């Protein structure tokens, strides 16, 4: 069962923040999930939703240095989040890379605040992952990593070449593919990572997530529907088990967690 999920990309702009926000907003269970915007390039959510940047990532990073007891660490993330209309708690990043990058670096040195075992799950929006960066260090703190990628040749090739290093770094890693006509199986074989879901381009859903339009049943829109499907799989712990990981003859077997179905359903 995933408690901390990192969402990131390797290049392009596949909509990491939008997807991470959608994922957190549809996280199953009563406690739901809290969204941590830990994009070292600077955050968008505060501007989208017209929020102040404090409380937020900078305050959380500062608090992470001081909180020593596990209880205080567990509460730190929620304590520095702001609640959006609808009830989603969000810990927003400052808009500039200057301030956000510093906060991410500081937080990556004290990642225990992300490892709360009780309360809401944490969804981290990491933006673009650069090897050996503070973002990469922070990503390792997550139980599960979701790599969002456009279905185009350049992006998939980048993923393929980084796949081995990434798979070694994360406990669980899967792809979510944006758009494209290739089948999940083809992509999984090509990049040697399991495909956990597909997310179509959904202008309405993305505008809804950004707070630019209202909707009566947003859960039916493709973006949120895809996010909900992935959230349920991750929360149940059966992500890798039920995801398309290619045929049994996949070139490299996906990183299999120990008995995922058993632990997830327990």
């Amino acid at each position, binding site marked *: 069962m995933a408690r901390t999920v990192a969402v990131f990309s390797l290049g392009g702009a596949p909509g990491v923040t939008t997807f991470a926000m959608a994922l957190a907003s549809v996280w*199953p269970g009563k406690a739901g999930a809290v969204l941590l915007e830990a994009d070292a390039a600077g955050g968008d959510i505060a501007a989208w939703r017209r929020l102040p940047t404090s409380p937020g990532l900078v305050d959380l990073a500062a608090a992470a240095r001081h909180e020593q007891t596990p209880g205080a660490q567990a509460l730190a993330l929620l304590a520095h989040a702001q609640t*959006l*209309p609808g*009830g*989603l708690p969000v810990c927003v990043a400052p808009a500039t890379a200057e301030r956000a990058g510093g906060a991410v670096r500081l937080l990556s040195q004290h990642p225990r605040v992300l490892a709360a075992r009780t309360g809401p799950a944490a969804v981290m929006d990491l933006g673009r992952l650069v090897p050996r960066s503070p973002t990469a260090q922070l990503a390792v703190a997550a139980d599960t990593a979701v790599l969002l990628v456009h279905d185009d040749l350049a992006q998939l090739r980048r993923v393929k070449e980084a796949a081995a290093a990434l798979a070694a770094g994360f406990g669980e890693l899967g792809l979510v593919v944006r758009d494209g006509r290739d089948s999940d199986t083809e992509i999984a074989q090509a990049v040697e990572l399991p495909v956990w879901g597909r997310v179509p381009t959904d202008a309405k859903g993305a*505008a*809804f997530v950004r707070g630019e339009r*209202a909707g009566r049943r947003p*859960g039916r829109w493709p973006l949120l529907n895809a996010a*909900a499907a992935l959230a349920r799989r991750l929360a149940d712990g059966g992500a890798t088990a039920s995801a398309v990981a290619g045929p049994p003859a996949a070139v490299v077997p996906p990183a299999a967690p120990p008995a995922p179905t058993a632990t997830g359903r327990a």
Partner: protein
Amino acid sequence: MTDRRDRSTASQAQVRLLGTGPRRWRWLGFGAALMAVGGLIAATAVGRLDDRQGVLVATGDLPAGHVVAAEDLKVADIGGADGLSVIPDDRLEETVGQILNVPVSEGSVLPNTALGPKAAYPGAGEAVVGAALAPGRFPASVRPGAQVSVVISSDSGTDTGGAQDGSGGQAFGARLQSFEEAEDGGVALVELVVDAGDAAQVASAAAAERISVVQVRARGGD
């Protein structure tokens, strides 16, 4: 079975987010409409509080029979005049040119019943006679509207009609319509409303300066 249930919950995933785009504008419009309605209500209430009415008031002493002119009238604003016999200011134009049935003193409100059309004055069976009275032939205190008795001295020998009194004079009931004292010598110019049948006699006596005016008690005051 489980699969189907999963899929049905998938389409109705709980979303902990609200889009706030167009809805904000709707609320903004709703708020503006509410403010406009409130303003209208307030304006109506204030307008009703100040529900005063303009009524016609005499600018000077106006005798009975006076033809009302525009300069005789002014408009005064009073509140709560609904139940009173007043002439509202929107009837100003039709009031001008009408005739007063009763005298109205300066600053008084014109009663609704005080006016009659020109044709209705003098009333049926009445006649108006003018006369010049020498000093001593009228009480100095007499005022327009007073009920008077016109006494004709009998030195000319006329003795037809009228009430014969002991001194040989005749007396006719009359109403003093207007009264104007001339500056020189104290002669008073009066207009008398008399019975139409007596008019000729009173008029000829007046021409001969043989009449005196005696103030009597009004008939209605008996």
